[in-house]
């Protein structure tokens, strides 16, 4: 309940003078993990993200080199207002330098503006919106782990290459779903595939049967689910009911997390395709990290890609701090430094922070195992294909980020 305590401290700290911190030596940084601690994203980010941040601080070894690193966490409750208020207070009152995680695109973009205004550092791992490194990019922002462009691109490309050349989309009827469908369609067409139809469904639909019937009638080889969260899990579950996968069609979820697969269960989710950039059982490094991680988690769950992204992002941030040697409070300068160092960490491998703030690293297409193939409580995925980092994300010449035009 560290976050509880810190939130209470946040209140009391307001009344106290914090001048003492400002005058301390210049090897002091404070990191705020701003996440959804109890809502929709709590399982895939939330407390696990805070743990990942703690582990990054320990693993960096900066403390032994004379640095003081403090960590606080907060709950934005998926409300942009609450998110920005916490972020402002962190900068103004608690003298936070860096904000990490921030799932939920709406909150993430709102916080993006605050961090820019306050010249902090923003390492986002939890949000899907590719706007963070395009239209709304900022010199203070680094976006790790994933975004809608990557999801659409990696999944579309890999599946068409594997023979899934006719697609039907089930699209959530709002900006996020439309972006996923648009980007995936472009990739499918570019790789010689065909889109035979699509249907828009409202957000938070309880019953997908009408839409699934249309998808079934389309005879497309791949049914792309351009939706998220409860909509994705419900459509997968109901697709099983209508015998869609058994009938020979494949489901491709464009955004799905480890925790969602757990919630659906292997029985229903088997055969499902989707993209992630991290899986605990990828290699020795990820297994070693995940083992340490899940031992400290109350639920014993391994890290999700978002939590892994918090760890990797902070590790890279610490490298930049070390390279700077001190005075970590000019956010834009720190981020500029982060962009000059190639990324290389045990969880995501090698990559780089591009000029628009996008971090490129490999992305993997997974397929959910059959229950008979699974050997443990979290043994869910088979690796189907790998898309190299420089192909998975928005190419710089297509990015609309204003930073690139200078």
């Amino acid at each position, binding site marked *: 309940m560290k976050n509880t305590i810190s939130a209470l401290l946040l209140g009391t700290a307001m009344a106290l003078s914090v001048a003492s911190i400002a005058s301390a030596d210049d090897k002091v940084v404070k990191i705020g993990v701003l996440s959804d601690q109890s809502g929709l994203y*709590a399982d895939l980010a939330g407390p696990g993200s805070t743990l990942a941040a703690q582990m990054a601080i320990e693993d960096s070894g900066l403390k032994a080199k004379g640095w003081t690193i403090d960590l606080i966490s907060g709950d934005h409750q998926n409300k942009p207002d609450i998110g920005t208020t916490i972020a402002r207070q962190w900068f103004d009152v608690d003298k936070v330098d860096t904000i990490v995680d921030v799932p939920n695109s709406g909150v993430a973009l709102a916080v993006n503006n605050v961090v820019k205004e306050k010249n902090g550092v923003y390492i986002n791992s939890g949000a899907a919106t590719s706007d963070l490194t395009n239209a709304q990019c900022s010199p203070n922002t680094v976006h790790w782990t994933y975004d809608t462009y990557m999801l659409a691109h990696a999944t579309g490309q890999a599946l068409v290459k594997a023979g899934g050349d006719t697609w039907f989309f089930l699209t959530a*009827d709002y900006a996020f779903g439309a972006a996923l469908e648009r980007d995936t369609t472009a990739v499918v067409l570019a790789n010689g595939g065909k889109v035979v139809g699509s249907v828009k469904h409202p957000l938070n639909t309880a019953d997908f049967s*009408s*839409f699934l*019937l249309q998808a079934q009638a389309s005879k497309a080889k791949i049914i792309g689910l351009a939706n998220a969260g409860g909509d994705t*899990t419900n459509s997968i579950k109901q697709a099983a009911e209508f015998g869609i996968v058994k009938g020979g069609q494949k489901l491709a979820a464009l955004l799905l997390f480890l925790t969602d697969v757990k*919630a659906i269960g292997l029985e*229903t989710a088997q055969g499902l395709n989707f993209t992630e950039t991290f899986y605990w059982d990828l290699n020795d490094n990820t297994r070693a990290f995940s083992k340490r991680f899940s031992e400290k988690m109350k639920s014993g769950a391994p890290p999700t890609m978002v939590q892994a992204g918090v760890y990797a992002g902070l590790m890279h941030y610490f490298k930049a701090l070390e390279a700077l040697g001190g005075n970590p409070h000019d956010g834009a300068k720190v981020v500029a430094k982060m962009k000059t160092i190639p990324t290389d960490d045990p969880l995501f491998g090698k990559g780089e922070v591009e000029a628009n703030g996008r971090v490129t690293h490999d992305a993997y297409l997974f397929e959910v195992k059959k229950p008979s193939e699974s050997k443990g409580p979290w043994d869910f995925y088979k690796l189907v294909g790998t898309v190299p980092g420089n192909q998975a994300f928005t190419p710089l010449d297509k990015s609309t980020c204003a930073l690139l035009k200078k």
Partner: protein
Amino acid sequence: MQALYAQLLVGLINGSFYALLSLGLAVIFGMLNIINFAHGALYMMGAFVAYFLLNLGGINYWWALLIAPIVVGVFGMILERTMLQWLAGLDHLYGLLLTFGIALIVQGVFQNYFGSSGLPYSIPDQLKGGVNLGFMFLPVYRGWVVIFSLVVCLATWFLIEKTQLGAYLRAATENPTLVRAFGINVPRMITLTYGLGVGLAALAGVLSAPINQVRPLMGADLIIVVFAVVVIGGMGSIMGSIITGFALGVIEGLTKYFYPEASNTVVFVLMVVVLLVKPTGLTGRAA
């Protein structure tokens, strides 16, 4: 044309949930004069009870259909005894506010313990698979939901409109003092009625568990749609709310086929139209 039949049938399935829930609301409103905002939360509890029964006690779906409504019904009766009964004689709005508060508490507690993403509950083996109807592939479970809820709705209608107990109930709605004079324990009847209405919600919850994820907020948005259904149908008659529930499910199903973007707003739009044309609702009397 084939697709149209399929959508009609699919609409009936959704209609089953609307009918069960609006029926429960109507039963409660008739007796307690309260709009039960907690209805969605109690529907969710029904699904969770089924989940617990299966995963903690190994008790299957069929028993859950019986046990969950009883468990949630008893919970509802406790709510009625400890809280709702103190509102008798006050403005109806307080009932709405109180039950809204109860809904927040119940949903919040479940969210704290089970997160928001939902838990799996699979279809019972006997109802797995589907039949090819020629124009569509109908999962057996869906067919079961329609038939079962139709039976439950009609049984409730029979209980209230055609039996001795129902007669007391209707009489007590009209004139509680007089019915009390006949030696009938009206407060106990009110409690039982609330339990019945709530039990119907829980039953709908169990029915939906295998179709949707079992999650704490599964009833929160649904209840608003059901409110609109109730406004359209009026809460005057039991049969009225059953028919409106099924009818709106079908209309929604058709919208999903012809103009899917509007399928989550169509019930609200219909509500506006009905209010403009016939302000008292299709079957209802004024509140």
